[in-house]
């Protein structure tokens, strides 16, 4: 009895001592399927024989699985999964092959599952891949079973080429050459994009002007929302598709409209209802067409020749009403107009003055 107890205590001590002497090799790895047919994590390292837990989350909006294969067997497993045909879905697109070491089943968007297994004793690079039909050629990563250091990311042939830059870039589906060019034509200002922009409604228009000026005009609210100086837009994120994104403003915003709508009818306090009718390109500058309380308005925005602000030309050809242009003293610009009378930051225009007038906004 006594000796037994001693032996047990000794065993316990030995266990603790060993555990202390040799740090645990066990590892938990989180891998998510994300938009653009890719895993957020494209490689990780484990020691031979270590206990590995993969926590797999599907953050994409289509189905994905995760299959770990023997070294060099990724495409064989992918093709075998494709060949399952009718049977595929039932088998989670996991073929019965010795090359398959382990798998996480097809997960619906938002689902999460964990797979725990013992890493192979044999060192090597073990691919993991989504074998859902159509995904396997591009959606994969690598489990390095090794005591050595992994190769540099940029030189790693075991991961998708797009991911060797180290950025968790969403795949765009385009070859890398096109990243430098957005279109088949040169973009010389003025030109515009209908695109999602920050701090505006979802029906926004971004216009690039000469003199490194740009502005955001909101086709939902029918008003100029803000203007900036610098470069135009970085659309990289939004053009990847498949996730919520905005065009990124590349410059300094110098004007931000703080009214509900600058144009008013009869009384400066009345906010009109608006309707967006479209735009005409005049020497490539858009002239926006909209109505305020049913009255036709045309608005053309050009840069000031010295690049210090914007000139807004309004045409309200048919009104018999008093028109007001209302600004906010804190909106970042000084105002001048070609017609009407300013009262503070409110410009009053008689119907005949409103037929055509300009409002010049100069950066403070």
């Amino acid at each position, binding site marked *: 009895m006594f000796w037994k107890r001693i032996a047990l205590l000794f065993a316990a001590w030995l266990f603790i001592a060993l555990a202390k002497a040799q740090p645990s090799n066990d590892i938990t790895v989180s891998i998510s399927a994300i*938009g*653009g*047919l890719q895993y957020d994590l494209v490689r990780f390292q484990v020691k031979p024989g270590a206990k590995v837990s993969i926590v797999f989350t599907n*953050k*994409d*909006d*289509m*189905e994905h699985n995760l299959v770990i294969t023997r070294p060099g067997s990724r495409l064989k497993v992918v093709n075998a999964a494709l060949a399952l*045909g*009718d049977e*595929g*879905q*039932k088998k989670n697109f996991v073929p019965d092959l010795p090359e398959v070491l382990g798998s996480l089943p097809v997960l*619906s*968007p*938002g689902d999460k599952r964990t797979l725990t297994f013992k890493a192979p004793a044999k060192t090597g690079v073990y691919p993991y891949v989504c074998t859902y*039909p*159509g*995904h396997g050629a591009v959606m994969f990563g690598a489990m390095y079973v090794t005591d050595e250091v992994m190769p540099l990311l940029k030189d790693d042939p075991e991961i998708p080429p797009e991911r060797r830059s180290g950025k968790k870039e*969403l*795949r*765009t*589906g*385009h070859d890398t050459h*096109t990243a430098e*060019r*957005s*279109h*088949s*034509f040169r973009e010389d200002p003025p*030109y*515009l*994009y*209908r*695109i*999602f922009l920050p701090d*505006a*409604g*979802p*029906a926004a*228009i971004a216009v690039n002007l000469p003199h490194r000026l740009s502005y955001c005009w909101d*086709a*939902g609210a029918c008003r100029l929302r803000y203007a900036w100086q610098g470069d135009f837009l970085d*659309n990289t994120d939004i*053009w*990847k*598709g*498949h*996730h*919520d*994104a905005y065009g990124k403003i590349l410059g300094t915003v110098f004007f931000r409209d703080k009214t509900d709508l600058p144009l008013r009818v009869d009384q400066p306090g009345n906010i009109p209802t608006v309707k*967006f*009718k*479209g*735009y*005409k*390109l*005049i020497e490539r500058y*858009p002239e926006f*067409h909209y109505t305020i309380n049913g009255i036709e308005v045309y608005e053309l925005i050009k840069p000031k020749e010295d690049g210090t602000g914007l000139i807004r030309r309004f045409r309200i050809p048919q009104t018999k009403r008093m028109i007001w242009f209302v600004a906010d003293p804190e909106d970042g610009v000084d105002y001048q107009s070609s017609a009407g009378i300013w009262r503070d930051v409110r410009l009053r225009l008689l119907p005949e003055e409103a037929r055509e007038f300009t409002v010049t906004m100069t950066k403070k």
Partner: protein
Amino acid sequence: MMRGNLYGLFIAGLFLLLGCTAKKSEQIPERSYRVETIDMPEGLTAETGALEFLPDGRLIACFLRGEVMIYDPGTKKWHLFAEGLHDPLGMLVVSRSEILVMQRPELTRIKDTDGDGEADLYETVTDDFGITGNYHEFNYGPVKDKDGNLYIALNLASKGGGIRPEVRGRLDTLGRSVGKDMFSVVPYRGWIMQLTPDGRLLPYAMGFRSPNGLGFDAKGNLLVTDNQGDWEGTSKLYQVQEGNFYGQPASLIWKKDWNMGSPFDLSIETLDSMRTKAAVLFPHNIIANSPTQPLCDETKGKFGPFAGQLFVGEMNASRIVRVMLEEVDGALQGACIPFLDGEGLRKGNNRLAFAPDGSLWVGQATHGWAGDDGIQKIVFTGKPPNDIYSMKLTSKGFDLLFTRPLDDSSALNPDHYKFERYYYEYHSKYGSDRMEVTAVPVTEVSISEDRKKVSLTLGSLRAGYVYQLNMGDIRTVSGDSLDHHLICYTLKNLAPA
């Protein structure tokens, strides 16, 4: 062993020789359809959102970064017609200088008013629908019916994204579940809308999820595809009729006088009783995973023998699907069959258009999904296909009509017709397995005098199931095997006795 190899070589050589001679003397093409790739302008990211032909025979295409470009098939030159559009995913040609384009914020009339070949006028045709800024709120269409009405489709928003601080349209979160369902929180997400000739945008039919494909059949019935996902056990083709609900609940909140609370709280039985079922189901991983535009073959034979039938693009595979419809008990139903697989065709087959010469042009797009970008065309080589022409329901089973006369002995062998029957679950969960997969025996086979029609009697016929037919080695009279062996018929209604 050695002898066998030599013998094999000899046979192979003989075939090679025969092959060459045949080619030289008769010029019979090997295949019925050939795929050609169109050169795209340098620098263009050719994610094709829309594809049509102008009255003068030139191709006009929209790309998702906002360009509208025109291609002259004669000179093979591209030029820019319009730019700056937001995810244009549909187009209707009005004239050689005017088009309607469905983009995210509006349906827009785009015109070249000064005749310089570039558009200068962009007019809002309608923006009478909501947008939240969610990336999945794509808009599709327009297509025009014979009375001059236009139809557009509004995609639901995805739980993979959110909504923006500023939205357009009245926000109502009743159209959003606590689960993972796609949602509709501004009007009329998940609807097909009708734009009348006098410019009113009217809610037309509801219950759609990702209706990336509108078209008409030869009789003018409005058809819309929808994609597998929540409430869509597999992808579908719907016959769309006014006032109907087609299954995804979110859009119900915008139904006139809706007073039943969150549509997601209704029982499946209630929702199921409200919905109109699809005309054709595209079995997932068997026929299509992401069907796109249905296009009726109105080439009168220029594109082969399938005039009047529909071709449907598939995003997820290098495939075009063919659909044949018939009216049974007052509703359209029918079969789908692979039409073209591979043979140089890429993935991402998003938009289809017939050229005046009868070739089928295919616009491709990835946009973060599985696929390819670019434009290809499919040309009928003149060699008649060896294929099923149509599959029709009878009171006892199915009649299969073939494009060519069949060899009696192979066509009359009941073992060459393996039927499986199954259905897809209607539920919130993303997709469905094939349920109750059951083999259905063929009890009788007969062939018509011209050997083109095979009549099959089945052990049982039940409405509400897909009948998937896998055919064995059936040969034509000239000994050719069939181009396709798999066809799926959606038995919505039984044939009246």
